[in-house]
């Protein structure tokens, strides 16, 4: 036992030493990390381009790199994309990448209110806390990860997806029917294309538009095109109508940034809870970053006593998703390293880097003694042990986020002032970026029409008070839910899977999350009626409460 912990801590510090510029290989890894961070910074800020796109573009450059250097380069970029994507979400209401959409819901209204500095300070600091939390989870989970992941099977994954969908009711600002309808609309959109089980084309409208013109929908509707259309286009219309800058009341003073940082620590419990939620969702293979952010947002709404502030610029609505968005990176590395099961699309691409480096994910990566490439070690080259490399991942996540957040804070004042620039000067560039973002994910020109259509739908939804957030959650979770439902019925029988304890527990949580807001509403209404009745009573006469 003592031996194991000795090796564990030895690898922990070895992992850090290998990515710091104190040795020749450390120097190379450190500069690769800086380069990766710079690329991730740029990719995160550009709307529509996400971590997966960045990793896919960077992967070919790692062929000639040593393992630690290659992962410093790739993970450094992937870790900061999530952080900088939030900047675009807050400032322009355009998600830097698909998964940063939850931050828009409250972050952008804050920017419009002139609190861009505060929102950015909050989202960056919570992102940093989340990233460190996620990295620590990765470090601590290594000895206990196996039973945790093996406890879940497809029925639980299906129920978790449904749990996410029931959260939409909370996301819809009190109107549960509208929220659930829009969530179902999102699920319906996720059904478009060849179905994931039998490859049957569904809802592609081939009979109306022809087979050639609808082929771009075959592998599913483009999530980024929907997101940028739904959120960015209505914002641009709003900006053009008002004729002001993004911040209708000025960007506010730089002091707002520190206020945002303080908010992170004021709501430390929420930030930690959302970080834990993000890390856990990250561990579950296939759920990815989108659900992590939205569930954190839903949790922030549910746990707040003033739900009506959400969607109008509530700081908790920025802190929760910001923390979860980054902590899920550490979480999603766990199944990737331990079982070779990627937690998200980015992690699937990262698995490609394992293959390029000649590494096999699994027990080797948790071994503190054996070099990961014995053949290279025999040639006298520097080769870390599996556990050392795994701990290097932990440190890469922490260091890259510290560097990014520090750089962001240096220029935050300037970033926040972008919101003061006249709308007319920004609109053409953002519109072009919106169309480019919709196109760049799949390089499909038809997706531009999707951007336009969902832009108009988004505007109508905004005008007639239909919540937009549940739609995205439905699209994100649709395919996951359908695939897991199929696997559950096939593996456990049509209804037998419903008797699994995990399914029952998640089902009960789901019911509670559906009915608790109703119960809370009714209690609040009764309390208000009671108070009104008390106010109407003349002084000196007993009120309804005094009868008891």
């Amino acid at each position, binding site marked *: 036992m003592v031996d194991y912990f000795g090796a564990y801590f030895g690898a922990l510090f070895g992992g850090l030493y290998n990515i710091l510029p104190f040795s020749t290989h450390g120097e190379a890894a450190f500069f690769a990390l800086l380069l990766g961070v710079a690329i991730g910074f740029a990719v995160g800020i550009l709307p529509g381009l996400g971590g997966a796109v960045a990793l896919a573009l960077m992967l070919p450059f790692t062929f000639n790199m040593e393992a630690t250097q290659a992962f410093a380069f790739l993970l450094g970029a992937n870790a900061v994309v999530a952080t900088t994507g939030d900047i675009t979400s807050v400032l322009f209401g355009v998600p830097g990448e698909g998964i940063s959409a939850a931050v828009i819901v409250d972050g952008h209204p804050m920017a419009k209110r002139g609190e861009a500095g505060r929102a950015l300070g909050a989202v960056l600091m919570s992102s940093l806390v989340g990233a460190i939390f996620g990295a620590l989870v990765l470090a601590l989970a290594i000895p206990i990860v196996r039973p945790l992941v093996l406890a879940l099977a497809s029925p639980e994954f299906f129920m978790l997806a449904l749990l996410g969908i029931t959260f939409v009711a909370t996301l819809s600002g009190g109107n549960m029917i509208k929220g659930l309808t829009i969530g179902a*609309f999102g699920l319906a959109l996720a*059904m478009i294309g060849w179905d994931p089980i*039998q490859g*049957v084309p*569904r*809802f592609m409208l081939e009979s109306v538009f022809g087979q050639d013109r609808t082929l771009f929908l075959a592998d599913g509707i483009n999530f980024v095109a929907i997101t940028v259309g739904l959120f960015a286009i209505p914002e641009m219309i709003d900006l*053009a*109508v008002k004729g002001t800058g993004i911040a209708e009341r000025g960007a506010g003073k730089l002091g707002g940034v520190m206020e945002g940082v303080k908010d992170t620590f004021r709501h430390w419990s929420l930030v930690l809870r959302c970080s834990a939620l993000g890390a856990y969702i990250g561990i579950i293979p296939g759920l990815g970053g989108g659900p992590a952010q939205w569930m954190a947002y839903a949790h922030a709404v549910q746990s707040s006593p003033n739900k009506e502030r959400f969607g109008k610029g509530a700081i908790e609505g920025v802190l929760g998703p910001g923390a979860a968005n980054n902590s899920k990176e550490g979480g999603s590395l766990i199944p990737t390293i331990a079982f070779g099961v990627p937690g998200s699309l980015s992690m699937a691409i990262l698995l490609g880097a394992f293959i390029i480096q000649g590494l096999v994910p699994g027990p080797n990566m948790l071994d503190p003694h054996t070099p990961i490439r014995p053949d290279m070690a025999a040639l006298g080259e520097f080769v870390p042990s599996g556990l050392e490399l795994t701990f290097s991942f932990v440190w890469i996540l922490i260091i890259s986020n510290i560097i990014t957040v520090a750089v962001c804070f240096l220029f935050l004042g300037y970033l926040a002032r972008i919101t003061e620039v006249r709308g007319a000067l920004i609109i*053409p560039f953002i519109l072009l970026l919106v169309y480019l973002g919709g196109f760049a994910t799949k390089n499909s020109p038809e997706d531009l029409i999707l951007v336009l259509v969902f832009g108009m739908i988004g505007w109508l939804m905004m005008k007639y008070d239909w919540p937009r957030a549940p739609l995205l959650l439905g699209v994100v979770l649709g395919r996951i839910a359908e695939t897991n439902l199929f696997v559950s019925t096939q593996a456990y029988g049509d209804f037998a899977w419903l008797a699994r304890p995990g399914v029952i527990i998640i089902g009960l949580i789901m019911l509670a999350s559906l009915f608790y807001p109703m119960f809370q509403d009714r209690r609040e209404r009764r309390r208000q009626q009671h108070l009104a009745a008390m106010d109407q009573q003349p002084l000196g006469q007993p009120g309804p409460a005094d009868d008891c």
Partner: protein
Amino acid sequence: MGSLDRLMTVRESVEDLLKKALPPGVADRLPRVACALFFPILFAWIIWESLFGFGQSSSRSAVFPLAIGIPALMLALGGVALELRSRGQRHENVPIEVEPHLEDAVTLEPGVERRRTIAAMAWIVGFYLAIWLLGFMIAAPLITLLYLRIAGKEGWPIAVAGGVFSWLFFDGLFDGYLHIPLSERLDGLFVSKIEEFSGAAISESFSLPATWLVGHIMALIKNPLYFDLPVIVALVSILLVRRILRWRARMSA
């Protein structure tokens, strides 16, 4: 009378007619109810397709759409009932107050708001049409220039500067440097027909200088000691533009 004004007049007279024909309050709620009605129609179509469309060839593929479609149809009908019962918040009649804390606060009249909304939507569609017809490479700088000049009411120097920035950023950086296939996949219907007819590579010739310039800028970023003729030209141009802008500011002061 402009076409936008004519459109507004037609819309207003239709609204008046509806208000007279329908019971009080119903006309105001009409757009909201119409918006809510979209969802039951959509879910009914999903159920229909699952039962009588693709579902007939593969019942497995229809399980999930039916499982979602049926309860969603109930919910959507509930949403319509909710809209019919609600009093309807008449956003369009509430003037928008812009920058209320400032002394020169602007209040938008409903008519102005409506006109600006239609104009903004027309520009958004216009951006798409420009990309579709001319291709992203030509449309990006051109539409930026036009938007800044016409909708933004900016002067020519700013409009041209915006167009040039757009040209460098999209044509040079994305297409030329990052190789996002804008010129191949978004080549524009109209321009590709001319290219086909004349044999000239219009989009490519248009973006080539931008790619060349951005290539030099990126080389300078990678190596600060990189210094050659294009860099000198770029630096001199920046200094000249700054001098012109300062001169303009002095003149206007």
